[in-house]
């Protein structure tokens, strides 16, 4: 298992290098200029100076190599410094946002907590709802419970979040007035009162995303449990006199979870990525909103860095899914 993990980690390096190059150059080739926000009254020579100050006048391959050095060397050093209070970085150049002139990682650090709180909670709740529904739906196939569950998961899966989000806002925030329509990022949980307000403002976005995630995961769970319920080893377990609970929650579940865990692990990068659309609807200024904002003003360093971090996460969770697969299924041997 260790050899496998190390081998996979080594293999990830060329993959990520390739991805970084593709992202960097594709984003760079896109039309638009960091100067498009600058008023036309600013003379061209001043513009050129501004470009030079940001390093945006350098050829693309130079910028790529510089960005690589900053991403893989300078930024980790700053990370260590921030963590341990050391001074390894010694003022080395960081990746700076063209728009806000703030280090991109600082920007991410400001945006990530909102995303993680809302998306993470939604994902967790989604899983907690989906597993029991999927398992019970399969166990009682074609029962009213199963039909209702299948109906709602089909709905949840096919109706986009921008629709359900707006619908919930319209009903519960505008008409009923139970929940706030806008997510207040400055709210810090310090006491019960602020906790209550946090819970209230999280309620709608979390509901929308949890339902969407639950719909997907419960469908996979149901299909997987159904497939396993018909296996011969289930009959063996019953012939051994095991209770239905043991049959379902031990024998069937362990086998059924193998594909489901993969789906859950591969879905996790979206938690970090932030459901971009949902963040827009609920005005949560998370990482997704940061990315969209950067795209609007051609803030290339921010776009390139955030997109590349998503790619790293996807590669990482792929690896985690594979490792979990090996732990759950003894037939899969990596060594």
């Amino acid at each position, binding site marked *: 298992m260790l050899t496998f993990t190390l081998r996979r980690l080594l293999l990830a390096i060329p993959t990520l290098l390739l991805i970084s190059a593709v992202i960097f150059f594709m984003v760079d080739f896109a039309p638009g200029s960091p100067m498009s926000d600058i008023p036309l009254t600013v003379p061209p020579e001043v513009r050129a100076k501004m470009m030079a100050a940001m390093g945006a006048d350098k050829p693309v391959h130079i910028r790529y190599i510089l960005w690589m050095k900053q991403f893989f060397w300078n930024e980790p050093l700053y990370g260590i410094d921030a963590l341990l209070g050391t001074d390894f970085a010694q003022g080395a150049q960081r990746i700076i946002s063209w728009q806000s002139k703030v280090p991109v990682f600082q920007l991410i650090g400001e945006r990530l907590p909102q995303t993680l709180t809302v998306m993470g909670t939604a994902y967790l709740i989604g899983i907690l709802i989906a597993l029991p529904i999927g398992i019970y739906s399969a166990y009682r196939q074609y029962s009213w419970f199963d039909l209702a569950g299948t109906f709602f998961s089909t709905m949840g899966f096919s109706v986009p979040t921008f629709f359900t989000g707006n619908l919930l806002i319209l009903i519960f925030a505008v008409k009923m007035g139970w929940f706030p329509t806008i997510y207040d990022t400055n709210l810090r949980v310090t006491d019960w009162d602020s906790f209550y307000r946090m819970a209230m403002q999280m309620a709608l976005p979390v509901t929308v995303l949890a339902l969407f995630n639950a719909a997907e995961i419960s469908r996979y769970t149901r299909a997987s449990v159904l497939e396993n319920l018909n296996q011969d*080893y289930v009959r*063996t377990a019953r*012939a*051994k006199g*095991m209770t239905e609970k*043991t049959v379902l929650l031990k024998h069937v579940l362990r086998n059924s979870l193998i594909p489901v865990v993969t789906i859950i692990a591969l879905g996790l990068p979206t938690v970090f990525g932030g459901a971009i659309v949902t963040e827009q609807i609920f005005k949560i200024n998370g990482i997704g909103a940061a990315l969209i904002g950067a795209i609007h003003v051609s803030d290339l360093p921010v776009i390139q860095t955030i997109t590349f971090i998503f790619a790293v996460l996807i590669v990482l969770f792929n690896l985690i899914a594979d490792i979990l697969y090996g732990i*759950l299924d*003894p037939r899969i041997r990596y060594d």
Partner: protein
Amino acid sequence: MPDGAKPVLEVRGLKTVFRTRSGAVHAVNDVSFSLREGELLGVVGESGSGKSVTMMSLIGLLPSPPADVCGGQVLLRGVDILKATPDELRRVRGARIGFVFQDPMTSLNPVFNVGNQIMEPLRKHKGMSKAAATERAVELLELVGIPDARRRLKSYPHQFSGGMRQRVMIAIALACDPEVLIADEPTTALDVTIQAQILELVKELRQKLGMAIIWITHDLGVIAGIADRILVMYGGQVVEQGPVREVFHAPQHPYTRALLRTIPKLHGAREARLEAIEGQPPILTAAPAACPFAPRCAHAFDRCRAENPARHSIDSRALGEGHDVACFWQAPAPQEAAHA
């Protein structure tokens, strides 16, 4: 053969119907037989003759719906287990009646090690501690002839060969010292040399442990070697039953005779081709009103197509004790030395 021993298991008039959307299928029709202590009863018939369904009906292993065990009695030491609550039936399964299935490749749970799977019934039915169950599991694996048993407990099913897995299945079935072992075509999925090994193992275990065994097979050659009595099934009913030697020597039912003719012979004149029984076993959408074998039977006459024959004894012994058959046709006396 232990004559006169009292029955461990007695089945009377068992009926099972599958109620599906496209109509009912009468899979088991009025099946009666008894299994005496220490006896090995061979159950034979083609695929689809109702052998497996009968045995699974006994201990509630059929999914319901669609299966409905709608009639009869199954007396385990005099107590009707068809009337038992699901909980009581669970305490019978795996504890007093052990089951070995056809395909050892898929019958074990792939994600648990075999030790876990052997210990499960021990802990459940016997309330053994983990340590005691481990010891017993080692003992069981040694009993079924798996070398290096203690280490092998930690192995997963995929690390065993087919024959070894079937040995593990047998160990699981025997874990709680059952009174009855039901083996549903346990050697069908194995290759011939492994079949022979498993047969030897069962013979040996039977002598050691003395439980009664029901052995389901479509291979008459297997039955001849190990069974005391034989039950021939067709169309979900018993068509012939008797001590194995008598049935082989003087088969009464045309179906039994046809089955016996399908065994390839090693000695005697070489036949042009292997015999086969023409046609397919019936799918019974209603309880049979006529002999289910009549459409394929060379000896069928009008009465066979109008009336379902009841089992009748062909000797002086009581029905079920000796040799009986469900057929209107009178088989001729056996010709000596017709086949070896």
